[in-house]
């Protein structure tokens, strides 16, 4: 009996010892990964550069553009007569649009207009559901808390093992690693890029330079795929009411302080537009009408069709390249200027 008890205690001690040693080994390997990953993933992101540039120049800015990659790549502030800044970013949703505004708008004495770039799926889109790593980046760059508050996943995302595991796997498997100097033609949704010298200069006005175009067949396939991705994966009905309320509140705050609010839908190719189900677009139209009725002072422009844009102006079925951005920016500038000059 005593022998059995002694053996049991020895077994327990041995297990604890092995567990501790195993755990120590795991911690060492884990730490080694974190150190190595921090050399692969650069500490300064496009989002960081953009937000810092915006914060530096906010006293001078008169027009702010918000939205996702459609605006980020589609509007070049250098073509505007007033000092403008493109605060849109890849995959950015209306929550982050409004939070950025809320954070900085009080410190923008010269602000005249805010332009919200909307999409067909904007009212149902929550970027933290698809791109959780961006939640961390918005907090690091601008101290914007995630919409659900600071939960466990927010803290675990400090670890690059959790934050970048999806891209890390892809990077390792495809042999692709992010480097300090990135070509102008590189165009990804991931924000873990540091701009090259030329790109950084452009990025200081918030605009992301994009070069390239697609042929008709590729545009057709791309349009179908992108539209399907947006209406089936990006849009969630449960998000609609909270998003609309948040946007309404922002519009209310801006108009109360005398800032003109514009809602725009940017240009798309017909390959993208026509791939959305009719009932989906009808619902959007209804939502927009309700929003406009509740805020009579705001102006809405649907630029998704009707502009003098050709196939070669588009990077893909739903993004403008730098040539298309120039055309669109000039048109938008003239449109806004006509309206803004009426404001004292």
């Amino acid at each position, binding site marked *: 009996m005593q022998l059995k008890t002694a053996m049991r205690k020895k077994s327990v001690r041995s297990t604890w010892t092995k567990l501790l040693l*195993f755990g120590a080994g795991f911690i060492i390997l884990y730490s080694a990964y974190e150190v190595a990953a921090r050399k692969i993933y650069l500490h300064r992101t496009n989002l960081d550069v953009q937000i810092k540039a915006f914060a530096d120049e906010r006293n001078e800015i008169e027009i702010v553009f918000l939205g996702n990659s459609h605006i980020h790549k589609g509007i070049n502030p250098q073509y505007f007569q007033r000092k403008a800044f493109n605060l849109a970013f890849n995959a950015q949703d209306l929550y982050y649009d409004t939070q950025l505004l809320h954070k900085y708008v009080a410190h923008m004495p010269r602000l005249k207009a805010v332009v919200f770039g909307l999409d067909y799926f904007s009212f149902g889109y929550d970027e933290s559901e698809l791109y959780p790593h961006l939640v961390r980046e918005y907090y690091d760059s601008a101290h914007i808390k995630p919409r659900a508050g600071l939960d466990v996943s927010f803290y675990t995302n400090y670890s690059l093992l959790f934050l970048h*595991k999806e891209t890390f*796997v892809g990077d390792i*498997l495809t042999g692709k690693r992010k480097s300090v100097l990135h070509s102008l033609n590189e165009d990804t949704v991931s924000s873990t890029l540091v701009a090259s010298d030329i790109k950084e200069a452009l990025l200081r006005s918030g605009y992301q330079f994009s070069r390239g175009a697609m042929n008709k067949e590729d545009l057709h396939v791309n349009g179908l*795929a992108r539209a399907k*991705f947006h209406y089936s994966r990006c849009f969630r009905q449960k998000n609609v009411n909270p998003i609309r309320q948040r946007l309404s509140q922002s519009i209310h705050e801006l108009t109360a302080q005398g800032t003109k609010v514009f809602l725009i839908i940017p240009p798309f190719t017909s390959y993208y537009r026509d791939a959305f189900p009719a009932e989906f677009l009808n619902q959007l139209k209804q939502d927009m009408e309700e929003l406009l009725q509740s805020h009579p002072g705001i102006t809405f422009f649907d630029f998704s069709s009707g502009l003098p844009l050709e196939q070669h102006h588009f990077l893909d079925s739903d993004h403008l390249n730098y040539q298309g951005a120039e055309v669109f920016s000039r048109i938008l500038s003239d449109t806004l200027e006509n309206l803004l000059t009426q404001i004292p």
Partner: protein
Amino acid sequence: MQITSAPFAIFIAAALILHYALPSRFRWVILLAASLYFYACWNVIYVPLLLSATALDYVFAKAISSTPFQSRKKRWLILSLSLNLFILFLFKYFSFSASSLNALFEGFNIALRIPFFHLLMPLGISFFTFKKMSYVIDVFKRKIGPEAHFGRFAVYVTFFPAIAAGPIDRAGIFLPQIQRGRPFEEGDFTAGCKLLLWGFFKKFVIAERIAALVTPVFSQPQEHTGLTLLMAVYLYSFQIFCDFSGYTDIALGIGRLFGLRLTQNFNLPYFANSIADFWRRWHITFTTWMRDYVFLPLSFSLSRKFKKNKVLLIRTDHLIYILAISFTWFLVGLWHGAGWTFIAWGLLHAAYLVVSVLTRKSRKRAWKKLVRNKTWRKKFQWISVFITFHLVTFAWIFFRANSLSDAILIIKNILLNIRLNTADIQLDHSQVFVVLGGILFLLAAQFIHSRINLHTILERQPVYVRWALYYVFIFAIFFFGRFETMEFIYFQF
């Protein structure tokens, strides 16, 4: 409480420490408390239902054992089974039955509508009901004596790793382990951890990644071409295996941590060389349950009714088999879900088994004629494995499809519309690489394990080799695992 969550890890750690800190005769308290707490985290309202259902069968079994009269034993047995089946029917099948009957009445223009309501199905109801029923039946048949201790019996019914998706352990195997209690064994702990690791790998690296590819296809099959549907069907075969067996490994692993050996539920099912062999390897505890408590008693009962050699020109033994198998597999399908797709899936497997039995001799003769060399016949056994896998995969279409019409549409498109549309599926190369790599690794590991026992090989390796392998697995789960959904397919049953 999600199995991959930090609260669950803390819960397990606390339960383990308390379990081994107590003398073995009190460990049932920790196991029961942990099981009820686990159940309460899912839905506290159903804990009294679970406990009362458990208490009823505890009483019925004691009543069966204590009475000397066979007729009274039978009455207690019938009462117990009726109550169990009634509860199962009420929560799981009432809505389906009512809506099916209403549809039937509508079809015949009968102005009668059965009102129905949706009740939240208690977690694991199919599993713990079967456990209780098998216990009472075994007591009735005197295979085991009734458990005197209610607490230990309650642990058997509610044991938390197995309550949600099995295995459906027999009381005769589980209860003695609780009764005698096991001291802490390093071997159990290590084995448990290895099972957990393997289970997490299968579930979160393979099954979850496949789910991301397959779910959009099955939810809208009309929008996909035949080739996409075919790929989705093949992938689903691996998804359901990795999901279910992954969970089973996690359950077995947790059991081992507590020094309890739950019954193996899978034995390389996709290496089966016939449908019958497949069912001896897939969800073993469930199929043996159906065999012991439905198929065999039914076959025996029918054999006593059919005295002649032939009935309606069919050999009696074949007819008995056809009837018993059809009914059993009808129940197998129904157990998996209150839906016609599951029933169709079950009956399809019944058809496979019937055809297999009826044609066994002629197939054997034809095979011998085709391949005269015995050695080559053995080598070509892989053809049987190949055919069996495809028969099973075909049947999974019905299991997975949202409706019978969807299942037929999928089959139709696979046969008639086999082309690839690049816009059809959003393929991320890294995702595909991980999925295919995971499946190949799984198949390779299982193939090797079918030849030589991998556990034994692993145990013989030096500690640094074993630990290196464990670290690789852990990091593979971190890097390649997908934790967004965290639901297990068999939880819905």
